[in-house]
């Protein structure tokens, strides 16, 4: 043993454990790519006849979404490389960077479907609220990490205040769905951060009261309330007199229901091919899965999502610091709620809000932000020993 000092077995193990690349959660990383592949197929299925019918390329949407997925995968890789604890230290900056974007879109943004949520740069659109979801989780996790074990009422008030600003801005667009997602993420982070039971009860009470006042005070447009409540009474929908929301829901359920156990087969769904379901390649993408791949396909997709959520939950427990845990929990809540809300709305058990299904719905900003989120979670996993 003289002369050359060989590293001891233990030291070598310590070095190896500190090498983040050896601890990539490949299952987690592979899942969004697999789901995105299915998503591209579904986007293609739901848009090809419509595009061809207008003399445009059948691949128009698929190509654009394919580019978004590619950018998303790169974003995921980048999010894995940079140590997430640097992010923790920079979380106030991230928060400060995102707020002007949310404010700016209200002034300069393009309006689509009555919502002013997009920056239009030439042919490209960018939706800052998608990025804001991830940024708010990072910022809130950073703040709660800083005050871990000592989240008293004033600090909680500051945390809620930090969250309330972006939520208010998103509501101004108005994008009720994204605002609700933000609230759910905030709630989940606060629960795990150790908010006391009675504090939490007060917060919930305030939120419910605020909602009630907003409805009474006509803050929302009638169609927004229509969408929110149309799932409550689905007994009779006459397509001639139905509101747009009722019509959407009826067509959505018809498409999924027609799929049966094994589905009509890829590209063989009549309701899909014939564009009976409005917004099918974006918010109602799950109806394509339902009609063409049936219960088998739909349950399998939900299983893939559940697997992804479970991996995130597992990493929340494995994280080497509390920030990592909170980050994972916030993003877990984001994914789980979006999936539940989106799929639930297509099946009539949740109100209709404009929330995309992660990795499935056509839409660049949401896809890239979702990949970014998975990248951050994978980052936490990679550095659980270092």
């Amino acid at each position, binding site marked *: 043993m003289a002369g050359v000092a060989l590293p001891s077995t233990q030291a070598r193990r310590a070095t190896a454990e500190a090498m983040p690349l050896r601890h990539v959660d490949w299952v987690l990383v592979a899942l969004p790519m697999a789901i995105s592949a299915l998503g591209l197929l579904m986007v293609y299925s739901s848009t090809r006849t419509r595009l061809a019918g207008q003399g445009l390329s059948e691949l128009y949407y698929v190509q654009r979404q394919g580019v978004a997925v590619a950018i998303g995968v790169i974003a995921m890789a980048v999010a894995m490389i940079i140590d997430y604890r640097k992010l923790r230290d920079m979380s106030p900056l991230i928060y400060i960077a995102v707020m002007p974007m949310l404010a700016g879109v209200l002034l300069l943004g393009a309006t689509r479907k009555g919502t002013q949520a997009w920056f239009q740069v030439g042919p490209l659109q960018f939706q800052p609220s998608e990025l804001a979801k991830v940024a708010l989780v990072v910022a809130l996790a950073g703040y709660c990490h800083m005050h871990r074990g000592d989240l008293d009422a004033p600090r909680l008030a500051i945390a809620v205040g930090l969250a309330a600003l972006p939520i208010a801005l998103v509501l101004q667009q108005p994008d009720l769905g994204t605002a609700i997602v933000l609230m759910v993420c905030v709630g989940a982070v606060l629960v795990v951060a150790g908010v006391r039971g009675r504090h939490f009860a007060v917060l919930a009470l305030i939120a419910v009261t605020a909602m009630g006042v907003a409805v009474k005070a006509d803050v929302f447009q009638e169609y927004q309330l229509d969408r929110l409540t149309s799932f409550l009474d689905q007994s009779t929908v006459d397509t001639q007199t139905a509101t747009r929301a009722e019509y959407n829901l009826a067509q959505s359920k018809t498409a*999924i229901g027609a799929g049966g156990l094994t589905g009509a087969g890829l590209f063989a769904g009549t309701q899909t*091919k*014939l*564009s009976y379901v409005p917004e099918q390649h974006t918010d109602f993408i799950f109806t394509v899965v339902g009609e063409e791949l049936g219960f088998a396909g739909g349950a399998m997709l939900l299983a893939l999502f559940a697997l992804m959520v479970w991996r995130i939950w597992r990493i929340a427990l494995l994280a080497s610091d509390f920030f990592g845990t909170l980050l994972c929990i916030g993003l877990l809540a984001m994914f*789980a709620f979006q999936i539940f809300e989106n799929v639930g709305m297509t099946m009539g058990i949740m109100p209709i809000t404009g929330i995309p299904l992660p990795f499935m719905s056509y839409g660049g900003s949401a896809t890239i932000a979702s990949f970014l989120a998975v990248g951050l979670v994978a980052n936490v996993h990679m550095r659980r020993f270092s």
Partner: protein
Amino acid sequence: MTDTRRVRVSIVGVVAVALFSTLVGRLWFLQVGSGAVYVKAAKENSVRVVQTETPRGRILDRNGNVLVENRVAWAVTVSRELGEPRLSAVLGSLSELLAIDAKELRKRFEDPRSSPLKPAVLAVDAEVPEAARVVVQERGEDYPGVRIVPLEVRSYPDATLAAHALGYVGEINADELSARKGEDYVLGDTIGRSGVEAAYENDLRGAPERLTVEVDPAGDVVGDPLKSDAGEPGRDVVLTIDEGVQRVAEESLASAILQARTVRNEDYQAGFANFAAPAGSVVVLDVNTGGIVAMASFPTYDPAEFTGGISTERYAQLTEDDSLFQPLLNRAAQGTYAPGSTFKIVTALTAMQYGYRGPDDWYTDTGSVTVEGTTFHNAGGRSYGSIDLRRAMTVSSDAYFFELGRQLWRTWKLEDQERGLAMQTVARDLGFGAPSGFELGEAAGRVPDPEWKRDFARVLWDDPQKVRENEIWYPGDQINMAVGQGDVLVTPLQLANAYATLANGGTLRTPELGMQVRDVNGGIVRTIEPVTTRQVPIDAGQRQAILDGMVGAVADPSGTAYGAFAGFPLDQVPVAGKTGTAQIGSATDAKGDTSLFAAVFPAQAPKYVAVAVIEQAGWGSRVAAPVVRRVIEAMYDLPLTPVVVPHSSASD
């Protein structure tokens, strides 16, 4: 990690599990638990039986060149269910997108001619660039009720070539639909409105497809049919037209007309103004089949203007604006003209057949004929001395035929009414005065006789005194008719057909544009055979005498068309021709003479007849003859001589 944190993280996990379980449960209920309820709903959503037109047949020339085919044009349609104020907003956005005035779009939306049951077509073809289609597709929510749909429209590779023969198509209207009840038309179908498009509608249309199909929420057909009756694609119609000859005929006609408008009419009654030369036509007939090799009418129109529907204003302009001279009118078949000296073949045949004057009998032309105090002069104030029939045809003596007219009238008045009206009989035998049966329809023309004049006077006048004055068949009536003046009216097609009958030895045929009908694979469905209307007894020697006189008109230095055919290789293609210069109008309404020329060629064994008729353009030898010359050159691949309408005097 502390235990409380572990517990709190676990709570989140439990909630997630609950959410996913709910989703799977609901999915099972909808897809498996609900049985066939939704399957049935989906089917009712989307299955319909619809009828679609098959591609319309093409129209080809005799050599298979495509004259009319189909292509896809994109159209922007707007739903009729929009209602205000959304409609205004959509029209506004479309106006910006398509760069069409919003008022214009509103007018198109409200066009009473379009079907109220179908989305309104607001822009077609060049008005809908790809960039606009992309925008409507991508930003559909900004254009509610707007759709981009493909339309199959007629395409004209040769632009306006043979427009009058080909005709145009339109969207079937309610009147046409009820007239065709029981046939397989539905509102919005394409139907031929004129020309071959209308005449061969049943062949070109084929049989529509009847499909059990799936439709999208807008009611439009999507995807492969569930059950199909394929129908039958429209059949191609091959015409007797020769594209090359047609083109030269049109170019030459247009050139002659435009030049004639720069020539001053030396008739003092016309005030020495330039010739108006508003219009004209050319017909080339195959004398052995009746097939129309070329049929040109000037001014012409662009059938592509009817693509996607022509505006009411534009249509009114085409049909009512006098300054455009009725471009939709096919003057070759529907224009009626005094034939002038081209009618002399009728008078000549009458004289020989009915024994008034033999081909070799000599007549002394003193320049005029006086009957009951009225003197009829030769055109141009000339006299030709002692002439026979051939010479009379060559120099186009009027006196020779005036005298025959006088004799005919005397015979009618004093001896034998039937023999006195022999010229009318011969004219009718040769196809004048009645429709020939031409597929595209035509004017009947007029062969005047005492009976016609009596009836006409009674229609024209209420005053019994006036009727008595005007119902009389005067010598002048018969004398004028003998030189193609007075009340005789012919269509250029009838004139060509009469010459063709003389040329082929007496077979009057129905002029035809259709030659063959083919299926989409080029297989012959049917051949359109020549139709013989009647055999006209024409003595071979008499026929030859007339043709000889006509050969002289072209080849003899004293012939009326000698100048027009200067330098033409008559040794290669011998041409027999007859000029005509018909006076129209009256002392109070002076108009330029109608310029006519009829040619039979090759003269020794005739195959074709070519006729040119140009309105208010002056001498037949100056305007019509050069046009026909150039057409003949085109048919025999001779170098084409530019049409030059001379400004100096020449006689007829």
